[in-house]
């Protein structure tokens, strides 16, 4: 039996097609995946992301504890700022990728993947430290992502103030006597924000955002949008068997900040050579949409399989990601992707697929 967010009725009302995602009954689309994709690229869309987990970490030992569990440097994260980070196992493999909001000097809000909530919590409790309070309040909080060029205008309409102009800023507002956090973050490559708030505010905020012009968007559009930006999806593009260095996420890993779980393995891998790289692959001509687990072939050798893929509306061709052996990961390397036994020529490009001009 899958779980539902507080917005289930709103989704059904808006004509959503529901599907199971990581044990959650979520909208995959409303009027159409492509229509919703274009709403986000050209206007503004709103996604229910209430399935994602909210962990609250505070106390005098909070910073040091998170520093020991996450790859990015907490010390350099200012209050009211957010950053992307990874939690690794001892072998340097990815348990989860997450966002850390520093909401007070000694208080953090972690936004984790829905599919990993129990595993993340268990891992963190297994590596507990003194003078830290940890609360998994995923069941009490809902979240919405509002994404697209018109998102700042929609924010102004709904909240009567300007959205912070920079990325990765956190703003604490109040809603119904409880805090509501706004972060200028997202998973689409567009301007926009994500808001985290108590469950009983969900329906009202959903209605207000839609009244202000945001288009309801489902997980289908979300997947296409993030794929064009080559943002990884944990469970598809990230796994406990691959390190963030292989995933091309070295920017979010600080090997010089001191000890953290997985660091030794990463240092060792860096010394011995990174064996594979999560690469962006574009099909040269017309092809079926590439999906996950399709073989990637060079000559007669199957060198990898795709971790995710799709037909890019922006590029007009199929795109995919795959952990290619490092010798094949350079841009312009030619290869083939097999779909139902038929080979389609493709080549490696530099990430992301969609080059945004800013």
């Amino acid at each position: 039996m899958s779980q539902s967010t507080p917005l289930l009725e709103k989704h059904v009302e808006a004509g959503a097609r529901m599907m199971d995602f990581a044990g959650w009954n979520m909208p995959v689309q409303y009027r159409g995946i492509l229509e919703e994709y274009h709403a986000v690229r050209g206007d503004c869309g709103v996604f229910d992301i209430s399935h994602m987990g909210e962990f609250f970490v505070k106390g005098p030992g909070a910073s040091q504890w998170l520093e020991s569990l996450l790859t990015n440097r907490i010390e350099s994260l200012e209050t009211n700022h957010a950053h992307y980070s990874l939690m690794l196992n001892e072998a340097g493999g990815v348990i989860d990728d997450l966002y850390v909001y520093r909401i007070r000097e000694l208080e953090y809000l972690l936004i984790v993947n829905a599919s990993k909530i129990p595993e993340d919590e268990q891992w963190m409790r297994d590596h507990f430290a003194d003078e830290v309070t940890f609360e998994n309040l995923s069941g009490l909080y809902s979240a919405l992502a509002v994404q697209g060029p018109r998102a700042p205008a929609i924010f102004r309409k709904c909240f009567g103030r300007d959205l912070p102009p920079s990325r990765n800023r956190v703003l604490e507002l109040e809603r119904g006597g409880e805090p509501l956090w706004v972060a200028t973050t997202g998973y689409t490559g567009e301007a926009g924000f994500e808001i985290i708030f108590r469950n009983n505010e969900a329906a009202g905020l959903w209605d207000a955002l839609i009244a202000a012009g945001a288009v309801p968007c489902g997980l289908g559009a979300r997947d296409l949008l993030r794929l064009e930006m080559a943002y990884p999806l944990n469970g598809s593009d990230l796994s406990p068997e691959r390190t963030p260095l292989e995933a091309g996420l070295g920017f979010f890993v600080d090997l010089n900040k001191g000890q953290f779980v997985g660091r030794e393995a990463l240092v060792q891998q860096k010394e011995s050579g990174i064996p594979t790289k999560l690469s962006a692959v574009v099909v040269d001509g017309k092809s079926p949409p590439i999906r996950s687990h399709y073989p990637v072939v060079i000559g007669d050798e199957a060198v990898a399989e795709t971790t995710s893929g799709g037909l890019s509306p922006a590029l007009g061709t199929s795109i995919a990601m795959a952990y290619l052996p490092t010798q094949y990961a350079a841009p312009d390397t030619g290869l083939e992707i097999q779909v139902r036994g038929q080979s389609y020529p493709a080549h490696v490009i530099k990430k992301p697929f969609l080059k945004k001009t800013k």
Partner: protein
Amino acid sequence: MNIPENLKFADSHEWILVEGETATVGISDHAQAELTDIVFAEPPKPGLTVSAGGVAAVVESVKAASDIYSPVSGEVIEGNEALADNPALLNTDPYGEGWIFKIRLTNPSELESLKDSAAYAGHIAR
């Protein structure tokens, strides 16, 4: 939901329009709505022989690939090449320009096991 009365339907949501010894096959309005935005179609090549219920074509939406089954046995005489360039025809005109293939029937008695429009309407209402 549009269900033309001059067509017969398979439980797997293909329609067939019989004209003498040949027939045209596509997918129903209900099927295209369920599949959502179709972004790729692989119509069969002329000469392919299929048996009733066998895979004759593949269409892919943003989310998934789906097999299209031939409602009858026979030899494909034409695939709709327009679908290769414009697979969205399957969504916008499933009973017209979105046809998938034409087939020469080898066993017309198979048509008797297909549903008429009323029976198909009942099938998708369940």
